[in-house]
């Protein structure tokens, strides 16, 4: 039950995009088409889950036992950067079609604050391993949901008559605001 609560909370109530404001850059940048938005979402979910496990292991096996928790920021960012590189090489070797689908988004993910944010938030909440993994999967799916919904709206928006100055990021942010408002409706789900 506890795990289900963490999952739903990470995906809907404390959605990474609409509540923590993490991953805004890809959210605005890669949300013009539903297909690419979906691939980006999957890539982020995948890396998030992996990061959750690895950052948990580093935190509890190396940093905390040796009293090195002040190195958290440096070690997390380095591990995430190299992890993404590894995943990219691995996928390219193992499955070229999969690489075609989500490979190009992987380098972009290194500088995605959602990944780093996940590692830091999970560490600050002192989650155990299972909770961290669930948190990672939930946050990734929540991001996918947000970016796909956004892409769907933006595809329709192509046909709309938007004032010249609002075009691009302006209208995208206002839509994101309205969506955030809608997502606030989920907050009563868990007491």
């Amino acid at each position, binding site marked *: 039950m506890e795990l289900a609560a963490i999952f739903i909370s990470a995906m809907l109530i404390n959605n990474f995009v609409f509540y923590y*404001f993490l991953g805004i850059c890809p959210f605005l940048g890669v949300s013009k088409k539903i297909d690419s938005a979906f691939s980006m979402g999957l890539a982020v979910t995948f890396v998030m889950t992996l990061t959750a496990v690895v950052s948990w292991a580093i935190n509890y096996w190396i940093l905390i036992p040796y009293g090195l928790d002040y190195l958290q920021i440096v070690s997390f960012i380095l591990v995430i950067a190299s992890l993404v590189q590894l995943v990219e090489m691995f996928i390219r070797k193992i499955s070229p079609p999969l690489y075609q689908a989500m490979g190009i988004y992987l380098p972009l993910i290194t500088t995605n604050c959602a990944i780093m944010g996940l590692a830091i938030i999970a560490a600050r909440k002192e989650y155990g391993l299972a909770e961290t993994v669930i948190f990672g999967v939930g946050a990734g799916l929540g991001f996918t949901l947000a970016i796909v919904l956004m892409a769907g709206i933006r595809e329709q928006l192509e046909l709309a008559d938007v004032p010249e100055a609002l075009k691009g*990021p302006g209208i995208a942010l206002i839509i994101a605001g309205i969506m955030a408002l809608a997502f606030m409706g989920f907050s009563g789900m868990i007491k």
Partner: protein
Amino acid sequence: MPTKTIREEFVKGLWDENPIFRQLLGMCPTLAVTNAVINGFAMGLATSFVLIFSSVVVSSIKKLIPNQVRIASYIVIIATFVTMADRFLAAFFYPISKELGPYVPLIVVNCIILGRQEAFSSKNTVGRSLIDALGMSLGFVLALLILSSIREILGMGTFLGHQVMGSWFKPWIIMVLPPGAFITLGILLAIALQIERKTKSRR
């Protein structure tokens, strides 16, 4: 690269290349911590500290860093200063540090900082990089102050915690909640774009 005067190098961060309004960099902290002026200001100062010192360090050792590992090296340098800022805030300004929460460590992934190292400090002298970093920091702090002032005044009726609106004013709570951040920034971006279009057509 066209040479700019020192003054131009500094001023460009305020408007022409303002990190938030013109380059759309560093959106996450911009949206997240601007629910009160004091938070926005603290975030602006912490980011400025990291940006200025990273720029100085990167530009002074740029010849020592091999090209292939430059991004990783920049990240380590930035992360070092972020750790210092994080520890400093936690030690001396604990309430603010608690308020900003995970967003202080997240300065490390703020694209403004890495962007300036890659685009400017790695190619310019220490002096110029320092001026560039100062200008960019000031532009960032000003943008955060504008956004957080609007949100705090409309959302709470206060400025820096002091009541500024009369008793007739009903606070728009939504402005200090996440949706208010998105909508305010969206409108500000549109205004910035409109001003830019107007001045360009006049030139």
